[in-house]
Structure formats: structure tokens, C-alpha cells
């Protein structure tokens, strides 16, 4: 009996050791966690999305949990908090920057995988169908929202817009930019992966039409972020690139 116990213990230990060597692949698909016992192709992960024909694929993204990205967020927040301390108390700019820091603290960030995520493309193009191996992945592929997301120095976080209409970037800036916003430039993006600079002032106005689902970032001006405002705004954009919505 003892021998049997010893043998069975040996097998249990061996089995658990074997199991612990096996890798769990965790994929958070639109907020629902799936655990796979072996590496999974992106196309297989995408097959768990309901009604892929309704998804707004240009907005979709794949992220991998990354401590480094989280640390980058903390470093940026520290920098912004230091800058906040330099602003005069009671100023509207200070309140707007504080609002943004609070918003930033609440977002989840992870390393964006540099890859266009699209249902049919993943099924047919090998290069667009990587193997998801060890780690926690976030897969985001949602339906189009009837709004343009507004970020940065803003008075409102979204501008409602019907799914079949468009709005000019400079009009959104005119209506929703806060006092702390730069008065000449903004950045727009569809997926968050790439941000494009756009002139919105009287001297550099560009006709950029945004559709529902787009994002627009109003950078903080140098009066708020000081001489390094350009660099800090770029760091914010880098972080927004890794924002898991």
C-alpha cells in the first residue's frame, strides 16, 4: 500500500510538474477571458468574436500585457504630476491637466502588437495570423460607436456623431478644446496605432474629415507642459497607442 502511495505520489508530482511546464494562453477578447492550453493562431482567437461582420476592423487591435508599458505609464504620470505642481493653483489649465491625469490613471495599457487585425485577413494571410504564445493578450474588436473620442486637453470626452456622417477636425477643436490645449495642432487616429498631426488654426487649417469611431487628441500647450511640451505630448501619444480600450 505504501509502495502504491509512493508510486502514485510520484506520478502525481510528475504530472503536476508536467502541467506546470505547460503554458496557459490567456486571451481577453472584448473583456471576456479565454484560456487555451496551447499556443493559438490569431484567426482562431478571432473566431470567438460574435458577429465579425459587424465589427469595425480598422479600429481592432491586439495587445500583450507588458510590465514595461505599465512602467512607462507610471513614469509619464509622475512627469505630468510634477508639471501639475508648477501650475498656478485655481487655474483652469491646472484643473484640466489634473482631469487628464485622473483619466490616464484609469486606463489599461499593454504593448500593442504591430499588426493589422482583421478577421478575413488573418484567415488568409499567414503574415497576419501570428501564433499567440505565452502571456496575457487583449484582443479588441468592437462595433463602430456613434462618436468621435476626444482626448487630452478637452472639455468633453466624446463628440456624438451618427455612423454615416463626418465632422471636420478643426470644428471639433473649436467646440471642445480646453484652455490648456495647443492652439494650432491636434492629432487624429482611427485605431490608435498611428497618430497623424493636423493643423487646426487660422494659419494652418487642414481639411481632415473624421468619421464615427475616430479619435482626436488635443495636445497640451507649452504654457501647461513647459518647454518640453512637444516631447511630453509625444509620450502621451505613445501611451495612447498602447491603450487597451
Amino acid at each position, binding site marked *: 500500500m505504501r509502495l502504491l502511495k509512493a508510486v502514485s505520489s510520484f506520478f502525481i508530482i510528475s504530472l503536476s510538474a508536467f502541467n506546470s511546464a505547460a503554458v496557459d494562453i490567456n486571451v481577453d477578447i472584448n473583456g471576456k477571458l479565454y484560456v487555451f492550453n496551447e*499556443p493559438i493562431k490569431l484567426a482562431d482567437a478571432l473566431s470567438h468574436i460574435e458577429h465579425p461582420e459587424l465589427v469595425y476592423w480598422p479600429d481592432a487591435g491586439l495587445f*500583450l500585457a507588458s510590465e514595461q508599458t505599465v512602467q512607462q505609464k507610471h513614469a509619464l504620470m509622475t512627469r505630468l504630476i510634477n508639471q501639475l505642481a508648477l501650475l498656478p493653483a485655481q487655474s483652469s489649465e491646472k484643473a484640466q491637466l489634473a482631469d487628464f491625469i485622473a483619466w490616464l490613471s484609469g486606463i489599461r495599457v499593454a504593448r500593442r*502588437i*504591430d*499588426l493589422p487585425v482583421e478577421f478575413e485577413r488573418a484567415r488568409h494571410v*499567414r*503574415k497576419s*495570423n*501570428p*501564433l*499567440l*504564445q505565452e502571456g496575457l493578450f487583449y484582443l479588441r474588436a468592437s462595433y463602430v460607436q456613434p462618436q468621435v473620442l476626444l482626448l487630452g486637453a478637452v472639455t468633453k470626452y466624446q463628440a456624438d456623431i451618427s455612423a454615416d456622417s463626418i465632422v471636420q477636425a478643426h470644428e471639433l477643436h473649436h467646440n471642445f478644446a480646453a484652455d490648456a490645449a495647443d*492652439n*494650432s495642432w491636434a492629432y487624429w487616429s482611427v485605431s490608435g496605432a498611428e497618430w497623424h498631426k493636423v493643423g487646426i*488654426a*487660422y*494659419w*494652418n*487649417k487642414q481639411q481632415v474629415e473624421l468619421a464615427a469611431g475616430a479619435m482626436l487628441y488635443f495636445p497640451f500647450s507649452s504654457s501647461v507642459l513647459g518647454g518640453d511640451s512637444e516631447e511630453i505630448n509625444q509620450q502621451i501619444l505613445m501611451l495612447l497607442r498602447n491603450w487597451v480600450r
Partner: protein
Amino acid sequence: MNRATQLGVMFCALFAASTLAQDSDYSQASHGGVGIFQTPTARMAPSGNFSLNYNDLDEYRFWSASIQLFPWLETTVRYTDVRTRLYSPYPEFSGDQTLKDKGIDVKLRLWQESYYLPQVSVGWRDFGGTGFFESEYIAASKRVGPFDLHLGMGWGYLGSGGNISNPFCELSDGYCQRPGGFSGRGGMIDYQRFYKGPASVFAGLEYQTPWEPLRLKVEYEGNNYTKDRARGIVQDSNINYGLVYSYDSLDFHLSYQRGNTLAFGVSVGSNFNTIKTPKFDRPPPEVNAAGLSAKRFKRSTLRNQLYYRAGFVTTGIKLDGEELIIRGQQQAFREFDVSIERVGRVLANFAPDKVSRYRIILEELEMPITEVVLQADEFRTYARYESLDQPVSSVYVRQTPAMDDIDWQFTTLNHGFGYSFEPFWMQMLGNPEAFFMYQGGILSSLSYQFSEPWSATGVIKTTLLENFDKFNFKVDTQNSTLPRVRTFSREYVTRSYVTLDKLFLNYRERLQKDVYAQAYGGYLETMFAGVGGEVLYRPLDSRFAIGADINYVRQRDYNSEYKLFDYSVVTGFVSLYWEPEFFDDSLITISAGRYLAKDVGVNIDVGRRFDSGIIVGAYAALSNASADEYGEGSFTKGFYVKIPFDLMSFKSAKGMGQIPWIPLARDGGQMLKRPVYLHGVTSEREKPRKYYK
């Protein structure tokens, strides 16, 4: 004499391949460069922008090329045809050809426009030489919605109307009068004239109409035409106005100038950063889950696949346990990472599965230049897309090839014949006989490789089309105190329809890990024969390299394919090659030594490489030959555009063709055109470049 050798077809291909429309925000002025009609503005075209312009203004016709070298630097070269005057009063010299003048302009942006401040630039137009339109200016531009407002102040031609007093004249009397003439024998920068004499303000307004292709322009100019070289120009108004219509990569200009002259022009534009040709290469091979079994592995199959799927000509293969080493030359793919990925994919499919490491030794002229090491498993994971968003550079290591001899198990023949054919195109602009003179044909090259370090090469030049029969003189009549080492060029190019351009022996060797050397002897170039050698120290991925060459040469007889003149010289240079961090994608070459005419000095060459791989450069030779000794032009200077063959082909290609523009070449400051340059041969030692960043 102006001499420019190039592959002319490339120029056409440059624009044929263009897919970019002109930037509608900015248009070219009559003289070339961003501006209104007669006046420049502070605006700059997008970086890399290139415009070829033609403008017709009754008395003048302007041909110009403008390049935005950096976002803050615009350069323009221009030929002007003065239709009211003859090239010379001697019909036997220049027939009935009208007067031609060349000019160079530079514009520098001082600061960019912002919410409250305008953009401000300073510029110098037609500086140096005889300077028909020599001017200095400062200009400011501010945009308000669809309007672009411009204000500037000019001296020289732009300020000759003198509509305000020269502010510098208030500070010093020396600025009240503008000296005449030019220093040296022309071709020098006459900075002692800058900002002197009459000054004028000028202004402009541009309006972008709601119809996007159409732009309206009006300007107030400060020029006074009474002293124009065209003579007799009547100016009824200081206000010029007109329009620009854009269609694809073309801008059409129509204007009414001086209150009495209808002018028109056309600009064709491209951008050296973004210009691209679609490619129809075979796709890179997909990588199998495993390589071949040892039994199925065949070196000949591997060699063939490397050539057909990766453009890699294999000259040696060695399988040593778990390591596979190959050596050879990449002949199709100019981007290093693309080349390595393709080679790696072939190796992953056709190398034995037991191999855990691939070593790829890249050679040029049989000398190992760089080595890439790939871990087989890691690369296979990458190539099968089982890893996430990694560039290929994350799975290879670049290193300097070891000096050890490798006992190759398979090599291609290390001796034998090779041949090649390539077109040549030579053009000369602004000649007395005809403005545009040309010669084109085929360069046929035959080489024999004796053993690895030795080869013999002969190049035959066959002329197929030319108009050099219009030459009505060969050697110029100027008294030259320097030996005529280059001014016999017309004799050389008209010697025969079929000529021996080069015939030389070449020996090369890698002496140390980072040191390369070569020796050569024979007919080294069109005008000189002799012997010489070169040593180059070039560490891998370094921004610096240093080399030295020494040559003993004699001048070739232009009456004979083989004979030599008595003139001989020992010539050579020590050269520093530097890619400074503060100038993106630029190479500065500084060479100090002795020129062909035995003058001593320094040659400075600055080349700027754009994202497409096109290189635009300029050079100047400053030697102890005085301006009087040198003659017209005062010193040797020139410009060039190097165009990758990849831009002219639907298949990926390596190599470059060059279009030079030499305003005036005489005998001082002339270097030997060596048949092989080690810095070019070792170009794979530079940090891997990504095109179209």
C-alpha cells in the same frame, strides 16, 4: 568645358515613376524655387521635393531645377536664355545662338511659422560668377485661411528699384554702393557685394481658390529692369499677377508681368523621399516547419534557390556539423534586411534540418565585407510568423567576418570570363555651338578573373547617337598656365565612335578585419593611364572611414587608343568619410592631396541621401592654383544626382547611375577617376538602411 556623363534615360524614368502630385500649397517662381513670379517667398517645399521648371518671359527663358535638400534648405540651379542678345559677337564661334547664363540659388529657413509669427527665410540668388540676377533677400510669409501673405526685402537684382533706403547704408557707407564686376575669373562667391547698394521691399499674395487645382498669385516687385542684361526692357508696372493650375505632377503657370508682358511656364514635380516604382518580384518563400533531411540536402539546389528566390549569387558553401556557412553576393535586393530575410528563408527550407546556425558572408569583388549569423530555430519561428511583430534585424547578428580561411566544400569557379553592358549618356549644357549637346551609347565591359584576388577588365565605349559634330573648336583658346589635364575633353569624346575607355589589371585583398586594399594598373580612365593603389580602413557600422590612394599616371594621347603623352604626375589623396549624426543621411568626404595638374589642395564632397535612395551631392576642389591660373570659373566645383536602378525597374535591383552637372571644368583641382573605389565596394559595411522610413 561643361562635361556631364550620365545615363540619360534615368532622368525620364525619374519622372515616369513619380506618383506624387505637386504640393498644391507651394508653387515655383519664374526663376525656380518656391515663390510668386519674380519674387521669392519664405515658403519651402516638402523635404525631398524636386521640380523641373521652364518659364518663358519674352526676353528671357528660364530652365531650372529646384531641390528641397532638407526641410530648411532649398537649392536651385538655372540656365537662362537671353533672347535679345547673341552668345558672342563672333558667328564663327557661336553662330546665331542667343546668350546663355547659369545660376545657383540657395534659400535657408530661419524659423517656421507659428500661431503669431510668420515663417522667415533668407536667400541668395544667382550668387557667384557673372550673376545676371544676383540678389540677397530676407522674406517672411504668413498664412490666413486660404490666403498666403508675403513680405520681403531684397538687395542686388531684387532690390535694384531702390524703393526704400538700404538699412545697412545707415550703419556704414560701405553698404551704400554695390561694387561691380566679379572676383577671380568668375564662379566665386562675391560675398563682398552682399547687402550693398539699392534695396527694395517686395510683397506677394497667394489665394487658394475653392477649386483645389487653381491658385491665384499677385506680387509687388522691387526690381528695376533698366539694367537688365536683356537690355531695353520696359516696365509699366511693379505689379505682376497670374495663376497656377495643377494637374497631377504638373503645374502650369500663366502671368502678366511688368504691365506689358504675358508669361507662361510649366513645372514637373516629384519627391525624392517618396518616389517609388511598383515591384513584381516573386514573393519571399514561405518557410516549412523543418529543413531537409541530411540525405536530401543538395548544395547545387541550395545555390540555385538562393539565386532565384533571394537574388544571392553563392560562391562558397560549407556544411560543418550544425553550422552552415555560405558566401556570395547579393545582386537583386538593395535593402539589407530584405536581402537577409530572403536568404534566411531559402536556408530554412533547403539546408539540412540538423543545422542550428547559418552564417552568411557577404562579399564584393571576392572580399568578405560583412557577415550575418542567424540562429536557425529563432529565424524559423520568425519566418513562420510564430513570433509577434519583430523585425528581421531582431533575429540576426551582424559582425565583421573573421580573417580565418574557410575550407569551402563547394565553390564556383574562381576564374573565368564575365561581361556586362550598360548605357552611357553624356551631355553638355550652355555650349556656344548649341545649348544642348549630347552623346549616348553602350559601354561594353569584358573581364577575366585570373584567381581570387586578380582580374583584368576592359571597357569599350560605342557611340550610337550624338550631335558632337557641331563642335567648331576643340581646345579652348584661353591661356592655361596649368597642365591641360582635363581641357582636352572634346578631343577625347570625339576621337572615334568606338574607343577603348579602360583596360586595367586589378588586385584586391582584405589586409585586416577592417582594412581593405587594392592595386591597379593600365588604362585607368578616358584620359589617364598608369598604376596606383588604395588602402581603406572602415570598421563595421561606423560613421567614419579613412582611406588613402597613390597613383603614378600619364596622360593618354587623344589621337590614339593606346599611346600616351609625355605628361606624367604622381597624384593621390588621404580621404576621410564621415556620416555626421546632425545631418540625416548625409556623407561628407574630405580628401587632401595632390591633383592631376600637380596643384595641392582639399576636395570636399557632401552627399545627401533621400528615403528612396536617391543621392544629391555637391563638391568643390580648393587647391593652391590661383583663380587666374585656373581660368574661367576660378575653381572646380560640381553637382550630381545618383539614382538607384531599383527606381527604374519593376524588379528589385542594386546599383546606381549618376547624373553629374559640372558648370565649368578646367584643369585645376581635378582628381583621377580611379576604376574602383574601395569605399563604394565596401558599402555593405554601413549600418543597414531602411528605405521609405
